[in-house]
């Protein structure tokens, strides 16, 4: 048996060897993925609710679910909408929402705002106000900051917007550009650690393996009818003032929960429901669910193993919103130049 100094040296040997191996793995990951990160690094803290926003003029090259993504944030702290005209005299369409509008899992050229901008051309400027983790309280706050004469489309997310309506606060914090859970890990891991690709990758893998299934939305949970109804009542009341102020220039729609349209995706959620039946429905002036159901296969509208919409889904959503805007513009202002109806996405 070893004892004393050789024993200590032995431990040090183990420590050094481990460090060497980990360093090699870290370098290998960085080389293999072109130094991209595995977590979205575009956030900053703000004082007002919900406590964070997007950091202006930030670029993040990341890998998510095997896809390489390029994500850029403009000087105003909104996700860049490529090919949007810069002139301030052009009428604006504000897209408001959470990660779905932001384009979680999508590159700048795949978001709803990009497709909508492509359809409207130079006649309108589309601004993407989507921020992951935002909910109805944040949507209202954004609406209040937007001129009443501008067009605004609130895209709610059936999967989590009811749960996000519990509070203006979120249980998250921003550190080193990352949105982290409000836990000791979120508070104390240094930026160096958070930026380690090995840490990011193992966090994701362990989360997927032992993190358990995602909860079904409150409005689909068989035990949550009361909470779902009260929250929906709240959500509807939240926007009363803005509805009155903006009239037809404010459009509400909702992105359906993936498992409600694709039953095989129920495996990703707990409890596993035989049939997805909703206690309450979000206001949807675009019949988004109907349009989703007409598209075949519906599964293609979502990213694999993820509730977020795919580029195909984003394109369809943009088409549906565009058509609704066109219809509304005809009603609202006969003197305006409404965009032509688009061709349906196939």
């Amino acid at each position, binding site marked *: *048996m*070893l004892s004393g100094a*050789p024993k200590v*040296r*032995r431990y*040090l*040997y183990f420590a*050094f*060897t481990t460090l*060497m191996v980990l360093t090699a793995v870290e370098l290998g990951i960085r080389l293999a993925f072109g130094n991209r990160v595995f977590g979205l690094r575009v956030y900053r803290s703000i004082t007002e609710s919900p406590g964070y926003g997007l950091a202006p003029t930030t670029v993040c090259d990341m890998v998510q679910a095997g896809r390489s993504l390029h994500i850029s944030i403009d000087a105003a702290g909104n996700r860049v909408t490529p090919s949007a005209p810069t002139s301030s005299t052009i009428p604006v369409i504000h897209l408001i929402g959470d990660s779905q509008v932001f384009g979680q899992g999508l590159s700048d050229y795949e978001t709803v705002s990009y497709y909508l901008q492509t359809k409207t051309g130079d006649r309108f400027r589309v601004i993407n106000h989507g921020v992951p983790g935002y909910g109805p309280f944040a949507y209202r706050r954004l609406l209040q900051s937007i001129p009443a004469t501008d067009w605004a489309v609130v895209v709610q997310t059936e999967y989590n917007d009811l*749960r996000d309506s*519990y*509070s203006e606060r979120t249980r998250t914090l921003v550190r080193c550009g990352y949105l982290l859970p409000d836990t000791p890990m979120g508070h104390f891991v240094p930026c160096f650690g958070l930026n380690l690709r090995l840490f990011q990758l193992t966090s994701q893998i362990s989360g997927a393996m032992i993190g*358990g299934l995602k*909860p*079904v939305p*409150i409005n689909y*949970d*068989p*035990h*949550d*009818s*009361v*909470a779902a*109804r*009260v929250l929906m*009542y*709240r959500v509807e*009341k939240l926007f009363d003032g803005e509805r009155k102020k903006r009239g037809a220039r404010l459009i509400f729609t909702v992105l359906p929960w993936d498992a409600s349209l694709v039953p095989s995706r129920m495996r990703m959620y*707990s*409890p*596993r429901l035989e049939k997805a039946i909703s206690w309450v429905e979000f206001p949807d002036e675009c019949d988004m669910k109907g349009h989703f159901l007409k598209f075949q296969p519906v599964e293609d509208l979502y990213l694999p193993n993820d509730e977020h919409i795919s580029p195909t889904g984003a394109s369809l959503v943009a088409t549906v919103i565009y058509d609704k805007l066109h219809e509304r513009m005809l009603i609202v202002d006969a003197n305006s130049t409404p965009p032509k109806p688009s061709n349906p996405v196939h």
Partner: protein
Amino acid sequence: MTIFRNLYNLTVGPFLKFARKPQPTTRFDLFYLSVVYLVKLLLKTLALLVVLEVCLRIIHLGAMPVMPYQVREQTPVMPANAQFTVKLAGHQRASYVTDDLGARILSADLRRANCTGGVVVVGDSQALGWGINFEDTLGSRVAELLLHDRGRARILGAPTTDPEHNLHSLTRYRNWCPGIERLSILILNLGNDLDEMYLGRWESLPQSSGFVATWLTMHSSLYVDLTILKRKLDGSKEDLVPGINSIMYALNRDEQDFLADRTAEIMLELARLAQPSESVMIVIVPQDYQVAANQFDKYRPYYDSDKEFNDLKAKIPEYAKRMSELEEHISRKLSDSGLAVVRFSDIARESDRVADLFEHTSHHLTPIAYQLLANRIVNSMPQTQ
């Protein structure tokens, strides 16, 4: 080549040289020693855990310091076919016996007893009896008065359940026991039922408790104590204010009214599910501060400062008034639908022992209160009037 050699000498070389230095060293030695160390560490840890477990069992004298429950199909239930003793803070030791469904019963020999013609009480911890023996529970007292047999009572209750959970528990019970009950008592506990149906859904319950966690909860004092410690350290209930209904600050008046309407609907659905039963009675238990504002004083230990406590205490009259309005609203809706409703707030108002009706550490009723309630329930039944 020279560049690579220099690079090697500067980086990897010193580490390898360092690694070679300790004596004796063979790869087998390293592996063998590692395994020996790990096994030793494991054995020492196991021995420590056993010692701790024995010590804690001696400290708790074989009783559990918390009320054990598990989750089945997203509904909290008591462990099925269990028999255990609980000693909650501020309480005497109390024994619990449950049947196949996890319903509390008087004794183990009644597990298979015919459930027809008895008294079934549905609710949360208020129905279950918080840290009290079966004989002191509402169900037992009612069965004694009505059927002269405490063993004819069955309590479908568990901590943290609420009326919406009870829809599922009662459905399971009805499948298990399709007979006609003498009396079904459905308890609406304003102490926390409304809060749990709303704020309690912020984080969803798992489909069911894991087998290991369930087993450890029932068989390991160390596990239970560590769980309690972890909860205290987490301080994860930051959204809850001790002693105050969370709906008072989490919802506005409109939303509270809306919630009260939905609650009444759930209670009506529960009453429908409680059939077949000769009588169905809804019991509304108020929040303690509705009955007497000074009941809030018992929550002082849960606050960090006098200021924080007194600021909230100043709001108690307002909260009590609002909770009573909601109670009135729900009660009227239920009565208008033809249901028999007993309000404990009426009983408490008439009592000259208000201080003895609620426990001194929580909003749970005392055995004295259960007796008063049982008397009122039995007297309110059409057959016994």
